[in-house]
Structures are given as structure tokens and as C-alpha cells.
């Protein structure tokens, strides 16, 4: 497999935007200005970036409570996202949704979701639309290891199979659901085999390896577009921060987090591999880094400066007509 240079740079840029976005939100959260529950995606960037690179205009994704990465990778406006997280006017959802409900249907991002397992059924619906209206589109359900034990997710796998829907199920296994280890919670300990139990072919990949994810996603998406119905990818990686901002993650082994950041980093791996092998130049990546820093900086600045939503919006958008 050969990935052309521009695609590699795009993939890196997406990962870099996600990483910087999350690092900044983490820092800003500690100042007390960001309200509510915030779940960070840092450490998991390769999944959102490499999977969404396979998608086009008519493709859709459903995300989770840990939704910033998928939103960025699917093309949501970073400025609008940051404002949303701050609960300000001009936020992607007008300040009504917050971190857990970021969505932008115009770019095919069907929403973060506060309900674990909430996304997989929706994705079946989006895939049904694609199939019925023959758009050629497919739909991706991102969900966590915890969500993989939720009935909604399991039913959806069966539903997608019996209707041969163009759905890609992406299990993002970061080792934990809150404080509970996925090595304990997933009976049978073999997600790919579980998917096969629903008649869905799957693959397991190292989520710190952008190339591995890219390759698996590319293969799966090709099969789906070829009309073969749903596919499954089990991506393993770690999350760098606590379950949500404020969680000290003491359930992890002492040193576990430090080790992860040092040894398991999709961005470092990417840089080493692409520059080491001569695929990309370090300067190109440095330039992206600098550009992204500026972008996120501006987003935080604008978000902080934005006014709160008008009080009159409290009761709008409940219905189209009532």
C-alpha cells in the first residue's frame, strides 16, 4: 500500500489538530472556565484521522461522548467546536449541546452522544438512507470498549448484517470504560470473533500506528463500497487523560500514563516513520505543527471572547413548528 504525500500530510495535520485541541482544552479546563463534562481524545488520534480519510461528502459518522477527535476529522469547524465547548454564541450547536453533543450534519457528523451505545443504531439509519437513495455513501459508528457490551451496539451489528448495510463499526478500545478494564468487561476477550459471531468480518489493529489503521480502514471501506455489507475494526490504544477532566485515573498502574505518552504516541510514530523512511520532510511536519498551534490558539481566544447565547434561545429549536 502506498499513501500519497498529500494524504499523509492531511492525516498528520488532522492528528495534530486533535492533539493540540485536546491539550489546550485540558489546560483551559483547569482554569475553571470550561463548563460540564469533557472527555478528551488525546492518544487516540490515529483512529479518527485515518478512518475519516477514507470518507467523502456523502459518508457520515456517529461519535461518542469522546467526540472531539471524530468531529475534527470529519471536518467540523474547529472554531465553532471550541465556542461550543465554552458554551458560547457561535458555537457549533449554539451553546446548547456542549462537548458531549457536538454535531454538524452538513459535514456528515451525526453527533457526539452522551449515551454509551447511542450511535450504532443511528449509523444503521444513515446507511439505510444511503442505500435507499443510492448515494453511494457509507456510515461509520465509532464506539468504545464499554459501548461494545451495550445491547444497542450489538443489535445494530446484527441489523446492519441482515440488511447488508454500508456500515463500518469501529471499536475504539482504549483499555478502559471509565475505571473498568476492557480486558475484564469484554466476555470472550476477542472482539473480532464477537463481530464474526454476527457474520461481520473484522480486523484488529494497533491504534498508535496510523498506517495500520489506514490500511485496515481502507480495506474495509473498499469492501463496504463494493456492496459487501458491514465491516468491523478493533482498534487498540490508550487515552492519555482521565476518563473525563477531573478523573485522576488512579485505576491505571503507577507509571502507566507516563509510559503511554512516552512509548505509545501515534504522532511520534508517524513522524519517525515518515521522516525516517524519507516519505516526508521534518520541515513539512514542523510547518503543520506551527500552523495548528496558531489555529487552536485563535480558537481558544475567540471562544473566550465570545458572548454567551441570547436568553431567548432557551426555548427555540425544540421543534420546527409547534
Amino acid at each position, binding site marked *: 500500500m502506498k499513501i500519497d504525500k498529500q494524504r499523509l500530510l492531511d492525516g498528520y495535520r488532522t492528528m495534530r489538530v486533535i492533539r493540540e485541541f485536546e491539550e489546550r482544552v485540558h489546560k483551559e479546563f483547569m482554569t475553571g472556565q470550561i463548563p460540564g463534562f469533557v472527555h478528551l481524545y488525546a492518544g487516540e488520534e490515529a483512529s479518527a484521522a485515518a478512518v475519516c480519510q477514507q470518507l467523502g461528502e456523502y459518508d*457520515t459518522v*456517529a461519535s461518542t461522548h469522546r467526540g472531539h477527535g471524530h468531529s475534527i476529522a470529519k471536518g467540523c469547524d474547529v472554531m465553532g467546536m471550541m465556542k461550543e465547548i465554552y458554551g458560547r454564541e457561535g*458555537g*457549533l*450547536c*449554539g*451553546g*446548547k*449541546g456542549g462537548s458531549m*453533543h457536538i*454535531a*454538524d*450534519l*452538513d459535514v456528515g457528523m*451525526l*453527533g457526539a*452522544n*452522551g*449515551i454509551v451505545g*447511542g450511535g*450504532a*443504531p*443511528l*449509523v*444503521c*439509519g*444513515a*446507511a*439505510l*438512507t*444511503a442505500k*435507499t*437513495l443510492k448515494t453511494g455513501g457509507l*456510515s461509520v459508528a465509532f464506539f468504545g470498549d464499554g459501548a461494545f457490551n451495550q*445491547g*444497542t451496539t450489538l*443489535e*445494530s451489528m*446484527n*441489523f446492519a448484517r*441482515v*440488511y447488508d448495510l454500508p456500515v463500518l463499526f469501529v471499536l475504539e478500545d482504549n483499555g478502559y470504560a471509565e475505571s473498568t478494564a476492557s480486558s475484564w468487561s469484554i466476555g470472550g476477550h476477542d472482539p473480532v470473533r464477537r463481530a464474526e459471531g454476527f457474520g461481520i468480518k473484522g480486523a484488529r489493529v494497533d491504534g498508535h500506528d496510523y498506517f495500520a489503521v489506514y490500511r485496515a480502514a481502507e480495506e474495509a471501506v473498499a469492501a463496504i463500497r463494493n456492496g459487501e455489507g458491514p465491516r468491523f475494526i478493533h482498534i487498540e490504544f490508550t487515552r492519555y487523560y482521565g476518563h473525563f477532566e477531573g478523573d485522576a485515573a488512579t485505576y491505571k498502574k503507577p507509571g502507566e500514563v507516563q509510559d503511554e505518552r512516552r512509548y505509545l504516541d501515534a504522532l511520534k510514530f508517524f513522524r519517525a516513520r515518515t521522516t525516517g523512511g524519507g516519505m516526508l520532510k521534518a520541515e513539512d511536519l514542523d510547518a503543520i505543527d506551527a500552523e495548528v498551534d496558531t489555529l487552536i490558539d485563535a480558537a481558544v481566544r475567540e471562544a473566550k471572547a465570545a458572548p454567551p447565547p441570547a436568553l431567548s434561545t432557551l426555548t*427555540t*429549536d*425544540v*421543534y*420546527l*413548528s*409547534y
Partner: protein
Amino acid sequence: MSVKSIREALNEAMRDEMRRDPTVIIMGEDVAGGMGAGGEQDAWGGVMGVTKGLMPEFGRERVLDTPISESAFIGAAAGAAMTGLRPIAQLMFVDFFGVCGDQIINQLAKFRYMFGGKAKTPCVIRTLYGAGTRAASQHSQCVYPVFTHFPGLKVVIPSSAYEAKGLMTQAIRDDDPVIFFEHKAMFDETGEVPDEPYTIPFGVANLTREGKDVTVVAIGRMVGFANQAADALAKEGIECTVIDPRTTSPLDSETIIASVRKTGRLVVVDEASPRCGLASDISAIIAEDAFDALKAPIKRVTPPHSPVPFSPVLEDAYVPSVADIQESVRSVMGSGASARVLEGAD
């Protein structure tokens, strides 16, 4: 115009809208029937035969039998609605909402709000409700107060064949999610129904009868009961106005208030469980907004606070009866006490 059953009226509304709009699809368990089987296709047309004939006309791409996976297919209806289809999904009995409630209450109902007005989810969830068919505790509930409670949903409860067709047509064309209640004991009830498509707007109550003494608001199957009670009461010299709200969310409270301002008396008849039900809801609106017009206590006619029993004698005692309504009306007129005890559980 011709005489049609509620079953036929609903079928016609769905058929006409499917002809008109290729984005309308139907999905649910056995909505056609025979999926994967070697015998008759379209064998069921839904558990009550309401969608019979639609699969042969529109094909299995637009009339989808589903596995028994309500979360998956109701959620899929929500996801499809978000992305350009207009699904009509059947939750066979509304009692089953507990296995897929999240997809209705937290997803479908809230997308538009959570996403700051960006989502449009035109989706109809058809569902069976109500007691009277000896279907026992898990197949006889009303549940519409629950859906009425949650902002973001519209709740429709037709009381006749005419209403069934007009409200269903509106539901399919409506851009908000609609929960459409069909009483399982009413499908064979008939009435005059126009042959052409027509819509009945949501949030507009129907006065099925006007009388100066008492306002009776009744929901769904209870509308017929209330009219029967009113007929009988007229012979005693008590004149009732009977109001069918037709939709409980939105609720046409103006019409009810206006009527109570004339009659000064209100009886609300609701087949749902009494606590936090529609009877209480409507009563509270009047006690707040038309208090000054009231001449008597507001009476609620509901079943007792107990699950629905199986045995016919018990179930008949459970469901509000025409006699119960008469007695409550008499009681607000100052003649006779209400027999129904609201919190009868022990």
C-alpha cells in the same frame, strides 16, 4: 368520501404518502411479514394488518421487516430521518418502549435542540396502546403521558377513522418526530373518510359535541365513551361539551380553556394510569389558567393505580367506563359522588 375502518384509513394515508414521496419508508417487525420464509409474502402486514398491501406495491426496499431489535431499528429510523428519509417505524406495542426508549427520548426528541437547530428528523413512530383485549400487563398500557412529558416529541392520538387518516398524513409530512398512537381495540371502528389525502393540523382540538353544563375532555378511545356518556346525560338534562384534543403534544389548551370559561365545569377522561397522566396535566392547566371560571372540582376519570389485569372481569373494571364518566359529570353538577378511587392500590 366513503366508509372506512381505522385500519383502512391508516393504510390509505401511508399508501398515498408513499406514492407522493419516495423518501417515505416503513420499517418494523412483520410490517410485511414472511421475510426469509418460503410461504406467503406480506403474510401479516403488521400485527394488526394495517400495512398489508404496501410491501407488494412499494417493495421490500421501502417496507422493511426487521429483526426483533427495537433499539436498532427505532434508532435506525432516527438516523434515517436525520439524513434524508421519512421513516414510519412501528414499535409494535407501546409497552415495549422500555427496550428502545433511549432512541426516542434522548436521540430523536433532542437532536434538533442539542444540535442548535441544525437537525431535522421527520419520523413517525406508530404504536399500539390501550386495554380491553385481554392482553394483560405488558401489552395494554397507554404510556402516552411519558412521551408527552418529553420535549421534542409530538404525540398524536386519533379517536376515529377520519382523524386517523388526517392525522397520519400530517404526521408523515411533519418535520418533527411524531409518536402516533393506535388503540388496539379500535381498528374495526368505521366512519366517513375522504378518499383524497388531507391533513389535520396538530394542536387543534375537535369539539365533538357542544353543551352548556360541563366540559368533558377525553383522549383516544375515551372520546367515544365520553360521547356515549354525553348522550345518556342529555336525557337527564345535562348538556356536555366533549373535546377531543387529538394531539397531546402540542396540546390545544386554548380550546379547553375557552370551553371551561363557558361551562365552569371540567371532567377529564384518560385511559392512562392516573399518576402524572394526561388527566392530571389538563386539570392542572385549567386550575392554573381558568380557575376563576370554575364552579366545581375538576374530576378525573382514569383507571386505578395498578397494572392492567388479564382476567376479563378485572380488565373491564379497570378501564374507565361510560358509567364512570356519567357519574363524574353528575358529581361536578352536584348530583351524586364519583365512584372511582384514584389511588386504589394496596
